[in-house]
Structures are given as C-alpha cells and as structure tokens.
C-alpha cells in the first residue's frame, strides 16, 4: 500500500469500509458530512447498506436495529447530532451491542458553530445518555491515526460488545494529510451466537434493555462494569514524547495534543525539559501513566479545545501531588503552538503550588477575550 493525500472524513469512511463495514446510517451535519456523502456512493457500489436517516434519532436507532443482527455497523455525526443520539446510545449500551460511532466535534454549546472544538469530551467520555455505561473512546491526532483507530474501533466493539466512539475535532475531519489505508477485509460470514437474524432451526433470541426486576438490572449493571474492568486492563493506549527525562509534562488529546507537541518541541529547543503525554484512549483513560507522571514531575499543563473537561480527569489522577495548569481554547478555536509555549513558560518559571483551581486561573487570564 502507498500513502495517499486523504481528507480526514473520507479517510475514516474508507477505513470503515475496509474494516468490513456492512451498514451505515447517518444524517448530514458539518463538519462531518463528507463522511456520509462518501458512503452514500461507496456502500451501494459494494452492495452494502447505506441509509440517510430522517434525523440522528432515526440514524442511531437504525444502527441499534442493525447491531442486533450482528453486522459491522456505524454512524457518524457532530456535536448537536451526537446529543440527539444519546438516547439510542444508552439503549445500545443497555442491550450490550457492538456499535462504532464517529463524532467530529464542532463549537458549542447549542448550535454553536462549525469550527473545530473538543466540547463533547464530557458527554462522550462520561456518559451523556442515562445510566452506568462505559463506551470506549479513541482520540486520533492525525489522519493516519484516524484510519488506524477506526479499524481498531470495530475490533474492540466486537471483542467487548461495546460502543466505541472515535472522537475528533472538525479540523481533523476537514484537513488533508498523506496516509495509508488498510487492506480490504472480507465481510463477515458467520455471526455471533446472540445475533437476532431470524430463528432458523433454533430457539428464539431477544434483545432488550428492559429489566423490570431491579435485581436483574443490577446484575446487568455489574456485568457491564466487569467488562469495563477488562477494557481498562487491556486497552489503554497513549503516545508519549520526550517523557524520559521530562521535568514538566503537557497533556492533551487529539488536535490539542498535536499542537502541544509543536510547543513541547520548541521548549526542548530552548533547553526546557518538557514532555508530552497524548492519551489515545480517552476511555479507558491512561490514569496510571498520569499518576506516575504526577509523582515524577514538577508540573503538569493540560491543553484542550474546551474549558477544561479532561482537566478534571487529569486532576483526579494527580491528586494534588504536583501543580496542574490549564490552557484551553473553547468555542471553535484551535490554539497556536506559540500560545501553548507561553503556557509552558508560565509553568516552568512559576515554582510551587498554585493559588486556586487551574481553570479559575486560566479564566482570569482569558478575560481579555470576553
């Protein structure tokens, strides 16, 4: 295989096709729409299922129905559309079905804008739909990674009968980069023992998320949690850069992590011992790695394209053992490497504890933008 110049949304769509995607259901929304448009041509061409649904409610429930039959199924959307899908995601989680969802985040809340943001972190990583459930969340920072993680998403979804969400911001969906697509996988021919495909020569099967008896519901909740423990044990993924001798650590995911890497490189060039941890799985979160860094570093800077959502998770790992700083650009703004470099300087020059919460301190510095 050779590298091609690929747009993020198209690359993800084709990666899913090559991973054996059998059915796609979606609804147009910027900055994700090319993904749907591409599949509207590609899927029928291959004799596979494509439906433009009446809404994201429709789309996620079509996904739910198709998932019951054991096929590889996917939808994609962006923040406001993802909000509409939350009901369906909760049901899918409660029914323990494998589903892949791509969220190409934009600015918000509300209708917001179509510029790149990371505003959906909490909604995606910490639920969003009702109930105790735990989607696997993968956060690519470049188009090659978006391709690779999309393929991985299908395998993980099936391995754990889980929802897997590939979470990226609109800039990754829209930009072009050279990347290599995976080989075409054959479509599945055998189906899991739970698939409802018609009771041919066997007893009936049922898929439901209702357990009126709380004892049965609790059992299901515990089973789902037990499965999540397995995921946490096996599937934590992250990228580290210059961490071996780092005195200070920057943590960021997706595009924010990528921008932070440029800043970290610049800081290194100045002789500052700074490293970067970029979580690739936001769920399961690389908590142990961050805990270890908290013990070994003089300060941690969290960089996000929101008002500090992952920040809370980082702080929960750090447990006050080292000062945590925050820098964010919410609303659809991608921070520049120079901005992050300024924040790195602030961190390295300022020794000791911080006064107050890192988000509050950041907000004080941000008043110039209000």
């Amino acid at each position: 295989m050779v590298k091609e110049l690929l747009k993020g949304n198209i690359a993800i769509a084709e990666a899913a096709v090559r991973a054996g995607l059998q059915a796609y259901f979606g609804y147009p929304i910027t900055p994700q729409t090319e993904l749907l448009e591409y599949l509207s041509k590609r899927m029928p061409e291959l004799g596979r299922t494509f439906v433009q649904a009446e809404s994201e409610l429709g789309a996620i429930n079509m996904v739910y129905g198709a998932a019951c039959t054991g096929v590889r199924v996917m939808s994609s959307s962006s923040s406001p559309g993802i909000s509409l899908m939350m009901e369906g995601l909760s049901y899918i989680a409660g029914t323990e079905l494998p589903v892949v969802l791509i969220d190409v985040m934009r600015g918000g809340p509300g209708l917001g804008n179509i510029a790149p943001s990371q505003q959906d972190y909490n909604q995606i990583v910490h639920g969003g739909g009702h109930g105790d459930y735990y989607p696997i969340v993968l956060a690519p920072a470049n188009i090659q990674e978006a391709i690779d993680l999309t393929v991985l998403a299908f395998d993980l979804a099936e391995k754990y009968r889980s929802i897997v969400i590939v979470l990226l911001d609109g800039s990754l969906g829209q930009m072009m980069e050279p990347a290599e697509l995976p080989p075409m996988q054959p479509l599945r021919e055998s189906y899991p023992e739970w698939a409802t495909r018609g009771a041919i020569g066997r007893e009936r099967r049922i898929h439901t998320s209702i357990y009126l008896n709380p004892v049965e519901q609790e059992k299901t909740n515990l089973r789902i949690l037990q499965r999540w423990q397995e995921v946490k044990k096996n599937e934590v993924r992250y990228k580290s850069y210059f961490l071996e001798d780092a005195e200070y650590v920057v943590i960021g995911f997706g595009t924010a992590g990528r921008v932070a890497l440029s800043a970290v490189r610049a800081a290194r060039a100045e002789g500052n011992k700074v490293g970067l941890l970029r979580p690739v799985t936001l769920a399961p979160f690389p908590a142990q790695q961050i805990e270890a860094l908290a013990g070994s570093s003089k300060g941690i800077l969290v960089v996000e394209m929101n008002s500090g959502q992952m920040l809370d998770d980082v702080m929960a790992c750090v447990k006050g053992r080292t000062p945590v700083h925050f820098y964010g650009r919410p609303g659809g703004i991608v921070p520049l490497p120079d901005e992050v470099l300024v924040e790195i300087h602030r961190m390295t020059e300022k020794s000791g504890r911080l006064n107050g919460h890192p988000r509050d301190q950041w907000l004080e510095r941000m008043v110039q933008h209000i």
Partner: protein
Amino acid sequence: MVTDTEITVYHRPATLTDLGTHYCPGCTHGIAHRLVAEVIDEMGLRETTIGVASVGCSVFAYNYFDFDFVQAPHGRAPAMATGIKRVLSDRIVFTYQGDGDLASIGMGEIVAAAGRGENITVIFINNANYGMTGGQMAPTTLPGMKTTSSPNGRDVESQGYPIRTAELLATQEGAGYIVRRSLHDPKNIRLAKKAIRLAFETQVRGLGFSLVELLSSCPTNWGMDPVDALRWIEQNMIPYFPINDFKVHPVIASLRI
C-alpha cells in the same frame, strides 16, 4: 350427529408462547397478539420473522412470540426495524406499537419510514390513551374524552385534535397497504386478521410500507368493564376513526386468500 373423535378447531398458535400475558383482563392487546401469531403460522414465517417491540403496555410483546424479537426505545421502533430490514432484506420485520409510541413521540420515525417505502409491517394499537403510564391523553384521545392528563375532557382548543394516523400515512407514496380495523367484536376481529395477513403479504411481495391500525380497548384506564369498553370502541371511536382501507396496492387488492 355426535362422534367419538374430537377435533381441535381452536388452538394456541404455534408462534404464541405458553406464557400467560401481563395484559389486564379484557384488554385487546392479547387479541392483536394472537392474530399476528396466527398469520405468522399460516404464512410459515416463524423462522424468518424478527419483531420489534415498542414502549407501552406491549413492551414485553417479545415474551409472547416464539421468534426473534428486539425492543426499541419509545417511538423508535420503525427506525430500528429499518436497520434490521436493510441488512436482512429477505427477513420479515414488523413493529408492534401503541398510539403514544407511534403517533406522538415516534411520529417522525413512522412518517419517515412510510415515506421511504420501508418494506416493514406495523401493527398499530390505537386505544385512545397512554395505557402503560396510567391513562394520560394520547394524540388519539377523542375530543371531550377524560384522561388523567385531560381531567376535564380533551379540550381541542388548548389540547388539539386527535390524529388520524392511517389516513395521514396513506398520503405517503411509499406506503403499500394502510388500513384501519377494530377489535371490538368477532366479525371485526376476523376482518382485522385478514388485514394483518394482507399487510404481511405486502411485505413478502416487497410492495412497500404496510400498517394496520387496530382500534383497541383499555378497560382499565377507561374505567369500564371489558364489554362496555368494546361497546365504547364501536360507539365512540369508530365514528372518529372510521374502519376503512386507505391505501391498498393493486397487487394486494387482487389477492385471493
């Protein structure tokens, strides 16, 4: 003439499980279930049918049918059925939905499915109220009808008019078979069964979206005994929701079964 061999002429359909239902005494949900099972048996569809239960008193419909079944979020059964049918186009997929589920929270999904000509069958139970949650006003509640959320009777000025679902969906090009029947007496039950049969025949032949609206009783929430409830359907519901064929594909119209 009396013979010494007895022949069973009325038995439980093979695809209706032995389980007693949880429906209230006199509720016609049970009759609708039986009719669906009889039709599935007669058409030999047990192994190829996948049902989609909705949210309402029939949420546990899957317990009573002996074939594959899934359970949808409130109102979303037509979307879920679409997902199944599109990946398994040779299977028979039907939803079983109440009027709150289909004509209120799920109006978007049902109209879109009909518009797409989705080749699925819908069994639509119109009992003029939200049964499961204790008898609140539904989109089908009659003008002046008292429910727990229209205690003074449905006031059309502030609470709007009942929605005639079958008529509305019959305007869709994608619909192949749309009729309304009633479950209030044996004759109408036989007609309802025939309609359910034709709805499934529509799907088997790939003629588009099919729906049978069934006027159904809810004696518990109507505060009536079962017989009065059946009479109430005849006297009050049928005048507003006429029994009729609203759209019948010519192939189905010429079918002799």
